[in-house]
Structures are given as structure tokens and as C-alpha cells.
């Protein structure tokens, strides 16, 4: 039921400067892949391409074997949360379901059942402007995940969350993923997050982005708090950090994990 | 057959807000004479569209016009014809404020401001009058439509062409009288101040109804000439919120009845070729008439085709 995401030799530039410089990446059906790359390298651009929202200059992109097109139905969480001011928080979170044709009452009930888990309880009828930054991000994530698309594209969904709220949602997301086996592509700046959640982590270079490394994460599922303390976790993390080659360009690097 | 026929509907277009020039129409309406004749007469109120244009385009069957307007329309090919002349004489004149000591004759209007109506020929005729009085005929022509009279009261303009029998009386009653320079005193032939025009096409298709209508209307105007007080009352009653001061209507109707409506025989409505010719020819000679393509007429029209008495009651 899940679909493969495939980018083959994809080039893209805005104006004269290239942004994506020949990206090759295949995410198998039901696989969870994290993408790590320096800020401004082209990660969001890659997602826009995969979602069919913009076209590559050359190369091929397909979702489930079909060329990515505007109508490609995937759960896309853009980097800016984009909640709609004319909908309450509850109505924003149920939007994806409603667009799938789920009756409004049912859609809202389903969204509502996750409000406590997402720390949004009590804000059902608030307007988005009344939410904190992290709450907005959680509401947007809930809206994205709820329709259960076969393909999820998550662009830094956890950036504005504190470590514990984040962990809580990690756990929930993993649980859902184990159950439904969506194909997930996740952008993050947090190496531990990537290792904790993903089957594979893809490392991109500075702009123009190329794939400079791929790290397999063979940790057993479900991963829990104890997984983090295993030597294998530490090994994968170290391997990954080693591949973040762009660190070498830095004038005064302070690695945040060594 | 004996079957009651459907009433013929006739739309009658007005040239202006209801006034004593329309008294015959309202008398006939008020007395129920049109209904008696099997006619359903609907009054088309005054608007931005000239009655001749409404008749020509099939939006009215009859309407109020003036001799000059009718001539312009017919020269340009409008399918209308004059069927009745409620007023036998010109009822307008050059009007200036009575307290304007500097304006003593048309000559003194040179360089002054005329508050006009945008009518075809009005400027040419006024210029002729001034020249006939020894002036140059150069004046400022401002086109104002309905505000012309107020512009003269408020001193924004110097002269206009009011109806002696309406604006003239109104001005007097309100204490700001006009004084006048009569066209006929400066070599302009007399004309019918008001005529009733009809759609030629409709006349051809409905000769009987046309005759009935024109004769009932003629009867209305005859009553207005014979019993102005009653006509004034009918006019006021037919237009309840139009007249603030009944004196305006009665004074006006009395004046019309006494001096304008009846011909030498005391009859109302007849038209003569001589009257039609004199003034219309002046317009032609000034090169003011143009055909449907906008080309100035090069041959004088046969004025006898511009009006007809065929629908009037036999004199």
C-alpha cells in the first residue's frame, strides 16, 4: 500500500545558481528516511519537487512509480506552518481529512482524539494566532499526519519543540509509522532525532546540494528510551557525524556532540 | 363583433416634468376619456431621452415635442410626425433677470453667458437675434439641461430661454422676475411652442386608435383652453407631489388659455403649413438641418409632410 519515492539525477536552480546538483535518492515503500544538510542547501526545494509543486530543470522524480505532479497526494508539512486564520485550531487540524471527503463531524472527532497527545487540549476553538510557536508546529504536524497518506514529507516538524515534547511526539510518530508503514522523508537538523527515527539518513552537501553520504540505521524497532543508550546507537551517530563533510569548511567549528 | 376588445396600449412620452404644457393630456386622463375610447394610455415620464427618440425607437407611440425638435428629428430620418399643436405660438423668449439694468436688448448679450439646453439650433437662432439687433452674436454657451433657470437666478449665467408660461410665472411668484426679449421682435418667425409627435409606423398600423387618441387629446386641450381652472385642478390632482403652489399652475393655465392655445376660431390643435414653413425654413437656411448621415440638407424639405391634421376632429 505504501509508495516508493524516487529522485533520479535531479537538477534545479533558481536564477543562475544551481541549488540541486544531481540528486539521486530512492526511498523504498514503507521506509523512513531522514535528510540532513546545512541550512540553505536545498532540502526544502527537494521536498517541493517531490510534492510536485515545482518542476526540476532536469532529472526524474516519481512517487509510487508515477511522475510527481501537482496532484501527487502526499502528506506535506512545509517549513512554515501555514495554519489558516479563518479556521479554528481543531478545524485546521482536521482539514486534511475533510479534503479527503471524511465527513466533517468524523474528521473533527478523529483530530480531537489526538489533541491531548499533541498538547493542544483546550485550544480546539482557539484561532491559530492564539497559539505559541511550538503549538502551531504541532497543530500543523497533526494536520499532515492525520489523513494517513502513503507518503509523508516532513520539513523540520520538530524545530520549535522542547526536548521532551519532541520526544513524546517522536514516540507517537514511530508507533504510527510501525502500524501503517508510510513512506516517510524527514528533514531535521538534529542528528540524534534522525538516528532515532530513521531507517536511513541521507547527508547533503552545502548548496548546490549533492548526496554526500548515506548511513543505514539498523537499530531494532520499536526504539525506546533505552535504544539511545546502546553502543550501536552511539556508533551510528558517530558514523553519521563523520560523514557530515561540510563541517570541514567551517572556520571555527564547534561540534555539538563530541 | 360585440366582444369587448382588448384595450390598445399607448405610451405617451413627456418632454419635461409635468407642467401646463401637458394639461390636455391630464384632463383627458382624469376625465377617463381615453378609457372610454378603449385606450390604455401610459405616461412615460421625463428622462434623459428625448420623446422623439423614444418614438423613433419604438419605445413610445406619442410624445411631446417642439417644432424645432420635430424638424431636426424628421430631417435626420426619425419616423415621427406632428399630429397636434397644443400651443399656437412660441411661448419662450430670451429671459434675463429683471433687475439687470445693463441688459436692455439682445445686443447687450454679446460676451455674456447663455445657460442653454444643448438643443440643436438654439445658439444659431440666438446669434441671429443678437445680430438682428446690431450685435456680433458672440456669447458664451454653457449647456446645463434642467439647471439653466437656477443658473440665471444665482447669477452664474446671464440669460436663458424660459417658457413665459411656466418658468416665467414661477420666477414672478418667487419674487425674482425675468424680463424678456421676444424672438418675434427681432425678426424670427413664430412657431408652435409645443407639438404632439407620433410614431409614423404606429400610425400606419393603427389608424383608428390613432384617430381616437388624437381626438381625445385634442378634446382635453380644448377643455384646458375653455376651462383653465378645471384643467389646472386636473393637472394638480394627477400629480399630487409635483406642485407646491397651486397658483403657479392656475396662473399659467389661465395665461395659456387666454393667449396661446386657441387659433382665430377658438379651436385648439390645428396646424398650418405657413406656420410650419416660416420657422423651419429659417433653420434650413442656417444650414442647421442634417440628414441621417449627418450631411447638411441641400434641398429644402417638403414641410407639409412634417405634420398632419388628418387625425384631428373635423374642424
Amino acid at each position, binding site marked *: 500500500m505504501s509508495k516508493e519515492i524516487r529522485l533520479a539525477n535531479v537538477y534545479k536552480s533558481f536564477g543562475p545558481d544551481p541549488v540541486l546538483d544531481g540528486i539521486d535518492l530512492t526511498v523504498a515503500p514503507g521506509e523512513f528516511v531522514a535528510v540532513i544538510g546545512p541550512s540553505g542547501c536545498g532540502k526544502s526545494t527537494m521536498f517541493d519537487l517531490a510534492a510536485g509543486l515545482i518542476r526540476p530543470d532536469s532529472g526524474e522524480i516519481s512517487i509510487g512509480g508515477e511522475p510527481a505532479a501537482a496532484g501527487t497526494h502526499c*502528506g*506535506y508539512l512545509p517549513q512554515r506552518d501555514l495554519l489558516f486564520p479563518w*479556521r479554528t485550531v481543531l478545524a485546521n487540524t482536521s482539514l486534511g481529512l475533510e479534503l479527503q471527503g471524511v465527513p466533517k463531524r468524523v474528521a473533527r472527532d478523529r483530530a480531537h482524539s489526538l489533541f491531548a497527545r499533541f498538547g493542544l487540549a483546550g485550544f480546539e476553538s482557539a484561532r491559530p494566532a492564539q497559539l505559541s510557536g511550538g503549538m502551531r508546529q504541532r497543530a500543523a504536524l497533526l494536520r499532515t499526519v492525520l489523513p494517513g497518506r502513503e507518503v509523508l514529507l516532513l520539513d523540520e516538524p520538530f524545530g520549535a519543540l522542547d526536548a521532551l515534547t519532541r520526544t513524546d511526539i517522536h514516540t507517537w510518530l514511530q508507533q504510527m509509522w510501525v502500524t501503517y508503514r508510510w513512506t516517510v522523508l524527514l528533514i531535521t537538523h538534529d542528528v540524534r532525532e534522525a538516528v532515532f527515527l530513521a531507517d536511513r539518513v541521507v547527508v547533503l552537501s552545502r548548496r548546490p546540494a549533492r548526496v554526500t553520504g548515506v548511513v543505514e540505521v539498523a537499530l531494532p524497532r520499536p526504539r525506546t528510551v533505552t535504544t539511545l543508550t546502546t553502543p550501536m546507537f552511539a556508533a551510528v551517530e558517530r558514523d553519521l557525524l563523520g560523514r557530515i563533510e561540510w563541517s570541514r569548511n567551517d572556520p571555527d567549528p564547534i561540534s555539538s556532540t563530541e | 363583433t360585440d366582444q369587448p376588445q382588448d384595450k390598445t396600449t399607448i405610451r405617451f412620452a413627456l418632454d419635461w416634468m409635468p407642467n401646463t404644457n401637458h394639461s390636455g393630456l391630464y384632463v383627458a386622463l382624469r376625465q377617463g376619456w381615453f378609457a372610454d375610447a378603449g385606450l390604455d394610455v401610459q405616461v412615460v415620464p421625463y428622462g*434623459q431621452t428625448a420623446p422623439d427618440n*423614444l418614438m423613433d425607437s419604438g419605445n413610445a407611440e406619442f410624445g411631446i415635442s417642439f417644432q424645432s425638435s420635430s424638424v431636426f428629428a424628421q430631417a435626420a430620418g426619425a419616423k415621427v410626425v406632428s399630429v397636434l399643436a397644443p400651443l399656437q405660438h412660441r411661448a419662450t423668449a430670451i429671459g434675463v433677470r429683471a433687475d439687470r439694468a445693463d441688459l436692455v436688448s439682445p445686443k447687450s448679450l454679446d460676451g455674456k453667458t447663455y445657460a442653454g439646453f444643448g438643443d440643436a439650433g438654439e445658439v444659431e437662432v440666438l446669434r441671429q437675434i443678437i445680430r438682428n439687433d446690431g450685435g456680433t452674436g458672440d456669447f458664451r454657451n454653457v449647456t446645463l439641461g434642467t439647471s439653466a433657470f437656477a443658473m440665471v437666478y444665482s447669477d452664474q449665467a446671464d440669460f436663458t430661454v424660459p417658457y413665459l408660461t411656466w418658468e416665467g410665472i414661477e420666477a414672478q411668484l418667487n419674487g425674482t422676475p425675468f424680463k424678456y426679449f421676444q424672438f418675434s421682435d427681432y425678426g424670427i418667425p413664430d412657431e408652435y411652442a409645443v407639438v404632439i409627435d407620433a410614431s409614423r409606423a404606429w400610425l400606419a398600423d393603427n389608424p383608428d386608435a390613432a384617430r381616437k387618441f388624437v381626438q381625445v387629446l385634442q378634446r382635453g386641450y380644448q377643455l384646458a383652453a375653455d376651462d383653465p381652472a378645471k384643467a389646472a385642478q386636473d393637472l394638480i390632482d394627477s400629480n399630487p407631489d*409635483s406642485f407646491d403652489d397651486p397658483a403657479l399652475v392656475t396662473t399659467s393655465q389661465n395665461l395659456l388659455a387666454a393667449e396661446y392655445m386657441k387659433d382665430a376660431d377658438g379651436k385648439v390643435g390645428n396646424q398650418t403649413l405657413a406656420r410650419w414653413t416660416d420657422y423651419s425654413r429659417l433653420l434650413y437656411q442656417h444650414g442647421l438641418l442634417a440628414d441621417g448621415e449627418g450631411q447638411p440638407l441641400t434641398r429644402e424639405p417638403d414641410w407639409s409632410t412634417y405634420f398632419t391634421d388628418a387625425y384631428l376632429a373635423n374642424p
Partner: protein
Amino acid sequence: MPTSRIRELIPAVAALALVFVSWQIYVVTSGVSPRVLPSPSRILEQGWAHRGDIAPHALATVEVTAVGFALSLSAAWILATTADFLPWMRRALVPLLVVSQTLPIIAVAPLMIIWFGIGLLPKVLLVALATFFPIAVGLIEGFAATGRDATALFRSMGASRWQQFRYLRVPAAMPRFCTALRIGVTYAVVAAVFAEYAGAEHGLGVYMLRQKQIFRTDLVLAAVLVTSVLTLLLYAATYLVERLIAPWAAADRARSAQR
């Protein structure tokens, strides 16, 4: 909070009062003829005295306004929606729309009567012609102003073109639509009066024309006053409409006004 509401109205009422009082003083001291410029008190007094005459005319005007504005609104929605779904329609129709507004209505009105006769039709058409443009343009620009990101998001969620329209473009256009509605409604009564000027049996336009004819400038202005009041009522109604169809925008405006 009714008291604070009322307090907000004070400056407006004061400004209006100032205008009327200066006018009254000018008329009284300058001794200008009431036929040229009647005093406000005279307008009120005479207007009240003739209320029995004015009321039926006002009613006729309201009818023309209502029918014309309803037509205008429906047409604007249909056209803007069509234009939104079919970009070539937008490119074809919007210029026509603009052209329609460049026609001097005063020259066209008499022609409309020649073409469409003398009934309700040309009047309703005139009201529609006058109010249609701002509403349609407001809607079209409102739809088009939907953020690109938002559209992209909707597409990625598999929203059909219709769903995009219904759930994104329509709500996003509401604030502009409300502004446009306010402008359009302001022209509606005025346009109806105008249409009556071009020929009608009843209506405030006819009444004004008649009073002007007999130099009752005071009654002309009394009818003008009635027109104003009708328009102001419609204008106020747009705020109620806004609170219904775009409560979030109304709330935002209120907050920003508090600033």
C-alpha cells in the same frame, strides 16, 4: 460593550454636527435664498412635513436598489468564480469588465432606455453596472491573492480544484470581498436614484427631479438626505455581514484599531 461603542461614535457625530451647524450659520448670516441654498433646519422641517410624499418614492428606490444589487452580487460571484477556474476567462473578461466601467453611464442610460424599454429592467441593469465592478474586481483580486504556499499545501493534500476554491480561495478572499462590498453598496442607492433620473414614475430620483423643477431645493436636499440615510444603513449592514462571513478579519481589524 455598548458604552464604548457609543463613545467611539462621538467624533463622527461631532464632525457631522459641525458641518451642519456651520452650514446653518452661513445660511442665516448670509441671507442666501433658500432656492439656492436652504438651511439644514429648513431641509429637515420641510422634509418631515412632506414625509407622506417622500416615503412611497423611497420605497420604490429601495426596490430598484435591492433587485439591482442582488443581480450585481450574483453576477459578480458567478463571473469571479468562472474567472478563477478558467484563467483564460479571466484574461478575456476582466478587460471587458474594465471597459464596461469606462462607459459614461450618463450617456449610456438614455440609450439603455431605447434598447431595453422603460420598465424595471434598465434601472436594475444600471444599478448592477454601477456596483458590479468593484465587487467583481475585489473578488477576483481576492482569489488571486491567495498565498502560493497555501495553494501548494492544498494541492499536496490532494484538494480538488473545487476544494481549493471552497476551502482556501474563498475564505482568503473574504476580507477583500468585504471591502469591495462596502464600496459597491455605497454606489447602489445612488445608482438607483440615477436610474430614476433617466426616466421613472416613482422613486427618490423622480421626486428630486420634480422638486428641482419647482425650485424646491430644500425638498431636493431632503430627498438627498433620505438617500444618504438609506446608503448608510446598507453600509452598516456590511459590517454585520463581515462579522458573519469573515469573523477572523473583523477581529483582526478591531485589534489593529485598538493600537
